[in-house]
């Protein structure tokens, strides 16, 4: 057994887990955060993407023990209270989801992608960077639209904040 402790969605958590426990299973089965999904066994589908210390990671390819001491944000922790994160809002507005199973991973991956591209995104970049997330429902058309729209919204909001600060 391994003792793990980490901060998940702003809350300090700790416990003992089987050594082989993956981060995704720790989140789902020990913490009840079932928004993070398991869609494959080979780190291909991206349904399990969460943020670890600010970066998107596939939580099926990290042991809970490896994540000990880090800060994790899951889909449940992305919205600010009742206010949806701009990426969540864009997925809804642009019909970027159907069955919803890949959606948490898509949103977490997209949020990280937008953060890494403060200069803005184009369609080719979004498609290339979504390579690690599989969706079987949408044909990606509206997911790409949603990510581009969210990127614009967040860039505008960022500029607004920068102006205020100045």
């Amino acid at each position, binding site marked *: 057994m391994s003792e793990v402790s980490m901060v998940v969605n702003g809350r300090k958590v700790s416990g003992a887990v089987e050594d082989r426990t993956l981060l995704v299973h720790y989140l789902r089965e020990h913490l009840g955060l079932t928004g993070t999904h398991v869609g494959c066994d080979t780190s291909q589908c991206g349904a399990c993407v969460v943020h670890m210390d600010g970066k998107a990671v596939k939580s099926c390819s990290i042991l809970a023990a490896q994540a000990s001491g880090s800060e994790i944000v899951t889909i449940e922790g992305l919205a600010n209270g009742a206010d949806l994160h701009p990426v969540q809002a864009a997925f809804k507005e642009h019909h970027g989801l159907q069955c919803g199973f890949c959606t948490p991973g898509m949103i977490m991956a997209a949020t990280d992608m937008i953060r890494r591209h403060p200069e803005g995104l184009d369609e080719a970049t979004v*498609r290339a960077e979504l390579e690690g997330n599989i969706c079987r429902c949408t044909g990606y058309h509206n997911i790409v639209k949603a990510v581009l729209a969210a990127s614009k919204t967040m860039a505008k909001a960022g500029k607004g904040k920068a102006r205020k600060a100045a």
Partner: protein
Amino acid sequence: MGVEGIGARVARKEDKRFITGAGRYVDDMVVPGMKHAAFVRSPYAHADIRKIDVKAAQAMPGVIAVLTGRELKADGVGNLICGWMIHSKDGTPMKMGAWSPLAVDRARYVGDAVAIVVAETKGQARDAAEAVEVTYKERKAVTDAVKALGKGAPQLHPEADNNLIYDWEIGDAKATEAAIAKAAHVTRMHIVNNRLVPNAMEPRAALGHYDKAEDHYTCWTTSQNPHVARLVMSAFYNIAPENKLRVIAPDVGGGFGSKIFIYPEEIVCLWASKRAGVPVKWVADRTESFLTDAHGRDHVSEVQMAFDKNNRIIGLKVDTIANFGAYMSLFSSSVPTYLYATLLSGQYDIPAIHANVRAVYTNSAPVDAYRGAGRPEATYLLERVMETAARELGVDPAELRRVNFIRQFPHQTPVILNYDAGDYEASLDAAMKAADYAGFAKRRDKAKKAGRLRGIGLSCYIEACGLAPSAAVGSLGAGVGLWESAEVRVNAVGTIEVMTGSHSHGQGHETTFAQLVSDRFGLPVDSVNIVHGDTDKVQMGMGTYGSRSGAVGMSAIVKALDKVEAKAKKIAAHLMEADEGDIVIENGELKVAGTDKSVPWFQLALAAYTAHNLPAGMEPGLKEGAFYDPTNFTFPAGCYICEVEVDPETGRTEIVQFVAADDFGNIINPMIVEGQVHGGIAQGVGQAMLEGAHYDPASGQLLTASYMDYTMPRADDLPSFKVSTSNTPCPSNPLGIKGCGEAGAIGSPPAVINAITNAIGNNDLTMPATPQRVWAALKAATKH
């Protein structure tokens, strides 16, 4: 329409829970005392099971029970069945081999379930499953359907000589032969429709809970049709009578057909729950899904299309061999017969058609309906042949189609179906315009200068949806009726619940169905709740597949709404002392036309429930139910155009534009309809360029059993799509809608392959058109 009524692009109500991680899928369910299951599966494609030794497994940490097929049989659990009877042309019934939920004496495909282990944790269950010692005696296996029919092939079931399940025909053989004999031109092709794995992103799962005190079972399962699951598990698998079995399909992460069928695992989990005395949950991993989800397609066909001197089609002859895998899945028999051969007239006026279909057992996963089910196979065959014929005849492929279009409706085809409405030329013209078909030659020349081969391909598809008139399918062998039910429950304060037998697993029913109510009564969609997926809440339903939720499921809601509206108007007329015929419902109010008298909707509902002042003899309450049985299939149709560029050095193909012009009849929510088309096209492009299930011919091992080996379409494999719709309303249902769920997957594969073969100048190309295959076909074409 109101802002949230029919035709409005209403954002989806259900999205809130999915984008915040609050969706509830089967794997998210927890029942007190719940334990975990793992299945022991055959590693051989074909083997006798000589002995199963469970002792070592039973002694493993955390193990609660290890159960085998013998115990299951001893408890009287029934075999899985195929629910659609097909008779061969000699009049004999199809040859259904026994399919025990846990194999007893013989395993017939890699992944065939042999035993179940129940343990405290999922990890412990898996460890113990590996410790179950099964002694197999391996037999020779065959995974190819053509080979399985051959002399000396391994035999799968004693019931089916030569592995032949049925040898069925439709149409007029003599008239078709005569047409071919007198034809000015005959195009002949060998067409392979590649085998696919549906790959819903949520793997299948089941949670069985036996309540000893109540002698009652509950099954949470990843199902597109929980009521059918309950019916079959009660009537055929002897799990429990219907009143002792509740089936719940909560949020389901995609289905595409693969979650229609009742699989061994949910039956075994329910049975094991009683045996082990604990709730039992099983969740497939992805490789288990690849091995055991029902696969799709896998047809091999020979086709001859005959033309007269005016390029009019005078006959079509098709001979198809369909691979059914190791067992007959629930609706497998209907797919290459009534969902395939009946569509072989396509959009064309063909006077004589004959099709022969042989269904065959092989040592592979069962094959059943996958998005489109039979109709993609028909469309691919026809549209490949049309394009090839145009090339052979030296005419424009669009013009060859145009000359042969059906133009008068209703149109009786020679293969059962009666098309009720359509305008195929409108879709063709819309697609050609959107694709700038006329400008293609210039684009091709420009690409050529850049060293790239540009090609364009068309596909004009038709499908029979809105499954289906019960009496008609009954006469064709279906074991069930294909109506749908609905109940509209107006609460005492005017909010509304709609219980529907349709099941939403991505289709957005919670929004579109609410739009119907909003449209009718002028209420916000937020005051309407759609309830589905639970046999305790919804009385009965036939579920979601065959693009039927709109045409059939919504029609049932319309019928129930009609009854609610009629009663509400009676009450309103009574309250306002007006004539019932003068009452109109607008913006959430019941008004007396031409006056300023009105009653708000909530007050009307309250009046129905307080019952202080109702018309004499009227029952209190406001709740109505309805069953809707369609009078015909619906016939969505359209035209898809794909344009590609091929790199001649590598064979790598890029889709540079993809245009879809569909006629779905009336549309409730265009945003959702477009999303359905996008997703369907992606699956069709996947079939055409990327996907294929491959079994090793010698060992029968599935070589494509993970996402490392089976190429799923990813965002960078696809372009954005140009989609549009035209509308000839469907005359056979009250909403005039035809259905849109499968069109994209049906129409797109031939458009892609026609485009690639156009680019490389070689018709001989099979799906998936991988760079290696495209390169080889290109080399073959340029050899001489």
